[in-house]
């Protein structure tokens, strides 16, 4: 057992070395400028977001950027809300859906990811996502290392109208939740050590670049791809990675035979509700200010979630005869995912449409598609986040509203451009996730033993169990 775990740790270090090597060499080449010289840079880096999300007053273009207390208050709050989405929100949403013997292990994944990603974001993630790559050929694809360990991020730095440190920690919460979302796909069978290793690599190799493509001044933002709060960066990205994980890891032992009913939908309800409430921080927070844009984003978020629940409810009522709590929770998440890319671009009426369509699409994804293709995406990461994410991304192009998004943006928006964003993300997330899984497989191994799976991951991975 001991040796097994050390194998795990060794794998982790290996992984660190793999990532670390290029990082270290890049670091050496880049000769990061002294901190003072960097002070302006972050404000510029943040600009692409500001462009993507037109704010009423173009605060970032003022000569002297200053902090607005109201905007700062809302972004502090939003950061807290998005953290709450992962812990305890997502942890419970997933924890309630597994069997009782795996509930601790399931919530532990979200918790561990929160810790690891927080540190990783500070160490190198933020820099890879948001810094300007000093190599112009690479800049469209990935940030540089100039902000590694938050070098060059100053206490008095300003990003838009909020402190730069606040932008760092707000974006950190996105860096946390995205890998945590993936864990639903391989629930009840992956080794804790392998999970950690996969997530460390994935977040740097997949999340950080994709984030850079769209929000860090990368090539997709140049293409005009719209993603207000992370429909593509977060949800499609995680959904596709989840699908690959589910296929590569294979089905749970007893899948289709054993009773794998969610053990406690009350936990799932709590989780869904906290995700919903937290999503206000996610979407309305992505306005990066407390203004009319944040307001419409919040209203849109609410309406879309509600609309998607109604879709799911009605379809389920007809097909399954009884509408269920799990269905409503799933619908809510589907609607929230679908509106994410659109929240600051469409009208509330448009949001309702996105919700209704997104909920129905996710139903198709989680119920019909999975049955058809016979993979075991345990908690439907692809079915819900992937499918609703894609639907939302496309509809953003169709429904972008001139009043909300601005005339220019709305005019330029179209399904085709959006599709490019989807395609690029699906391709990169799919391929890279597969490669990373292979690395993990041949170092620490992916799955727990059959015996451990039967015993449950709570005991086998963590030596703990629920006594009630």
């Amino acid at each position, binding site marked *: 057992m001991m040796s097994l775990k050390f194998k795990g740790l060794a794998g982790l270090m290996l992984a660190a070395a793999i990532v670390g090597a290029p990082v270290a060499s890049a670091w050496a080449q880049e000769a990061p400028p002294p901190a003072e010289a960097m002070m302006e840079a972050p404000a510029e880096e943040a600009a692409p977001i500001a462009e993507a999300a037109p704010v009423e007053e173009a605060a970032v273009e003022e000569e002297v950027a200053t902090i607005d207390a109201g905007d700062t208050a809302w972004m502090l709050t939003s950061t807290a809300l998005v953290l709450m989405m992962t812990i305890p929100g997502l942890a419970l949403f997933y924890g309630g859906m597994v069997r009782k013997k795996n509930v601790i292990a399931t919530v532990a994944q979200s918790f561990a990811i929160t810790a690891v990603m927080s540190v990783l974001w500070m160490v190198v993630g933020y820099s890879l996502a948001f810094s300007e790559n000093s190599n112009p050929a690479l800049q469209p694809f990935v940030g540089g290392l100039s902000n590694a360990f938050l070098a060059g991020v100053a206490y008095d730095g300003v990003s838009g109208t909020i402190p730069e440190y606040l932008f760092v920690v707000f974006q950190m919460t996105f860096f946390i939740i995205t890998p945590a979302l993936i864990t639903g796909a391989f629930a009840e069978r992956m080794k804790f050590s392998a999970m950690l290793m996969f997530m460390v690599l994935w977040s740097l190799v997949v999340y950080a670049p994709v984030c850079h493509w769209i929000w860090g001044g990368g090539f997709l933002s140049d293409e005009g791809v719209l993603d207000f709060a992370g429909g593509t960066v977060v949800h499609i990205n995680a959904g596709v990675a989840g699908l690959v994980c589910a296929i590569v890891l294979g089905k749970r032992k007893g899948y289709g035979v054993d*009773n*794998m*009913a*969610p053990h406690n939908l009350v936990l799932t309800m709590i989780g869904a509700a906290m995700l919903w409430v937290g999503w206000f921080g996610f979407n309305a927070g992505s306005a990066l200010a407390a203004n009319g844009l944040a307001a419409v984003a919040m209203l849109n978020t609410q309406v879309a979630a509600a609309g998607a629940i109604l879709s799911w409810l009605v379809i389920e009522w007809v097909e*399954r005869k009884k509408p*269920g709590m*799990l269905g409503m929770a799933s619908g809510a998440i589907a609607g929230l995912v679908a509106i994410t890319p659109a929240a600051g671009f469409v009208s509330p009426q448009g949001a309702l449409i996105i919700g209704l369509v997104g909920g129905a699409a996710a139903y198709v994804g989680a*119920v019909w598609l*999975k049955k058809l293709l016979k993979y075991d995406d345990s908690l*439907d990461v692809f079915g819900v986040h992937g499918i609703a994410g894609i639907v939302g991304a496309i509809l953003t192009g169709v429904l972008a509203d001139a009043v909300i998004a601005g005339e220019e943006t709305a005019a330029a928006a179209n399904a085709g451009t959006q599709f490019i964003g989807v395609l690029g993300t699906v391709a990169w997330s799919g391929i890279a996730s597969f490669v990373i899984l292979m690395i993990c497989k041949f170092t620490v191994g992916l799955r727990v033993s059959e015996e451990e799976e039967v015993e449950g991951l709570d005991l086998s991975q963590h030596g703990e169990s629920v006594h009630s």
Partner: protein
Amino acid sequence: MKLIIAIVKPFKLDDVREALVSAGVEGLTVSEVKGYGRQKGQTEIYRGAEYQVNFVPKVKLEAVVDDAAAAKAVEAIKAAAATGKIGDGKIFVVNVEDAVRIRTGETGAAAL
């Protein structure tokens, strides 16, 4: 002495207990069990995946009674637990060779 084992519908527990007490039974022990028989369990469907729950919740009562009291106890249970619908349950009677009351060390019928 006889050990009377009765498997009945959970919501009948209090009725059966009262009936037994009226019939002079002074002690009994109850467990929550799951039953399989003619009455079939529910099917639960979660996101399209069907899980057949083969078992139905039941409670099992165990009471040890004097040989003489056994028939009366069985009758009492039968009367109190019956709804006439499938799944009402069963009563089994098993012989008991000895009984001890831990507190006092009494044995036999005195221990009940």
